[in-house]
């Protein structure tokens, strides 16, 4: 079975189900606090984006999105694991239990309000060379991604929100321009962005985990 056949097998998922899954994934990235759930949502979003992109660009190019998304998820996982699961980080067993934040309900409310805005404006948004379903996906990803950027400044959540905005923009861009070099360069750029986000995650997390374990003050040399 070649790649085209594989994507054909998944054709059931490619329409509305894929868009709904992607919409839910980006909402989870913005609302949830626990890094494992958020990273899983990002991995799902990357696969959904690859499925959607396979409708407008050749499947082997679309697969690049899933590969890059997977690599970013791995980088972020390793960074988070180094901070939260490494015994040297000083985080106790209890500290590794999934975390729920009281602000989660506020973020859920913000996403719900954004959903109302989305429903009110979706028919006014006219994007060139894009059908209504794609237009909805682009609008939702960019809207919720920007909301995530406004709500979070911590590198993991803010970084994934930025990648969600870029994912939405790619759906529009690749509908307009199907250029192999551009796709490669943009995906490569996302990978570098993922690297920078991982580095910032470690920089910030090291300080907070050291402070928590009383090893050092924030701001000192890592």
């Amino acid at each position: 079975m070649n790649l085209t056949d594989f994507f054909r097998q998944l054709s059931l998922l490619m329409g509305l189900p894929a868009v709904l899954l992607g919409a839910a994934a980006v909402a989870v990235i913005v609302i949830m606090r626990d890094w494992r759930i958020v990273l899983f949502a990002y991995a799902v979003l990357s696969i959904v984006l690859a499925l959607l992109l396979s409708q407008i660009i050749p499947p082997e190019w679309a697969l690049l999105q899933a590969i890059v998304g997977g690599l970013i998820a791995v980088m972020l996982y390793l960074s988070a694991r180094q901070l939260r699961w490494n015994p040297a980080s000083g985080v106790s067993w209890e500290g590794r239990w999934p975390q729920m934040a009281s602000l989660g309900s506020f973020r859920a409310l913000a996403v719900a309000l954004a959903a109302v805005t989305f429903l009110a404006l979706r028919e006014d948004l006219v994007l060139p060379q894009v059908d209504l379903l794609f237009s909805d996906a682009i609008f939702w990803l960019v809207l919720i991604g920007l909301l995530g950027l406004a709500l979070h400044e911590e590198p993991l959540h803010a970084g994934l929100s930025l990648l969600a905005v870029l994912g939405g923009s790619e759906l529009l861009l690749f509908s307009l321009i199907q250029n192999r070099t551009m796709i490669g360069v943009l995906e490569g750029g996302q990978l570098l962005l993922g690297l920078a986000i991982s580095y910032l995650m470690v920089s910030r997390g090291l300080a907070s985990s050291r402070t928590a374990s009383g090893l050092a003050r924030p701001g000192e040399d890592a």
Partner: protein
Amino acid sequence: MIAGPELVIGFLLLAAGAVYLLRKMEGLAALGAASAALLLAVLLWRLPLDTRVLVAGRTIWLGKAVVWEGVSLQIGAATQALLTFLLITAAVVFILAWLTYQGRTIYPFGLILVALWAAVAMVHPLTLAPGVIVLAAIVSVFLIQAGKAGETRGAWRQLLFPTLAVPLFLIAAWYIDQAPLNPDDQTPFKIAGWLLIAGFVLLLQPVPLHVAIPAIAGQAPPVVAAFLWIGGQTTVLFLLQRFVVTYPWLTAAVDSARWLLWLGVLTALLAGALAATQSSLGRYFGYAGLFDYGVLLVAMALRGTAGLPTAIWLVLTRAIALLTMAAGTALIRHHMESDRLDRIGGAISRLPMAVLALIAGGFALIGLPLTAQFASRWALFQLLAETDSRWVLLLLIGATGVVIGTVRAGRACFGPLSGSPVEREPWGLALAAFILVGLGVVIGLYPQLLTTPVAAVILPLSTLGP
């Protein structure tokens, strides 16, 4: 034969690799990086663009384009001037960084940054340049953090806005390509114009998108912060000028000059007000630099009149002002182990030249007489008054805020020492601070010294092609 872009980017990346290997010996790394930058600056300054020249047994053709998959890199006369300026600034920054304990990452990453800024200035199609700016922002993340754990706001904000700008430029490129298909329809130009303006607002980061500047000033080593502002902001303004000259319809589609004027004045006004109220030297430095940046944006908005020479003049003089203030701030922060205004009391008795550099840099950013920026600011205010004198008044109100901030920062350095014993500033540092302050005063007294370099850039910059 080596083409100009290959020479610039290849040489800088090789030098960065070599300097990275030397990073443990900081003095050697700093001297190596500064020498490499200066050598390339001299080559760029001396070599002709349109003829082949034999250098060390290799033929170099500076003006030759490098083309790959429809993307080209080429050095024009204006790019040549910009690169010379960036490389000389980088050489000064490397030496200052070594003297003021700014961390070891600046030397290799600084050279890579200059290579990326050079690529932004050389690349065609222009709509790809913001992508290279994002690469530069990714590199600057490592410079801003400088290997330290803790606060990441400055680095994150530096990365955020250029990344958001990239899709806008690429979609604008599609509209620009569509426009010739239906020459009677101006809609694609209009949409592309608005997308480009929105993209440039994200790249320029005026108020209210200025949040990266004070965060970087509070977090990054001050000389690194000054380097990022001088290089990054100058490169983006150069890119804006390239867009305006390459796409003449842009000024007709959107009144970009008016937008820039409003944003520049708003930036200067708010930055001045915030500079007056800061409680740490780093953040005061950030807002003073932001005020100066707002004034530069105003000069760029007037580029249709005589604003372009004034903007070039300001770019040169602000580099001296920012580096002077950065050197003072870095020294005080390092020796006093804090930059909070309530913890730097007595700095004047142990670090007199650092305090002098701090105050002189502040006065230069305001544009007071006897400082590097006085003549260029005076010229700008006269030019602006011809349009509407109320704009000048608003800029002066902003400047008053920076005056208050400078007086507060200077005053905080007097009095008895507030903490543990402080080491005296080494003579090398004192000399570097004195040279920067002296250079500012000399240019303040004899501004005509800059006439030749400014005049040499005006024509290529106003007619530069893709």
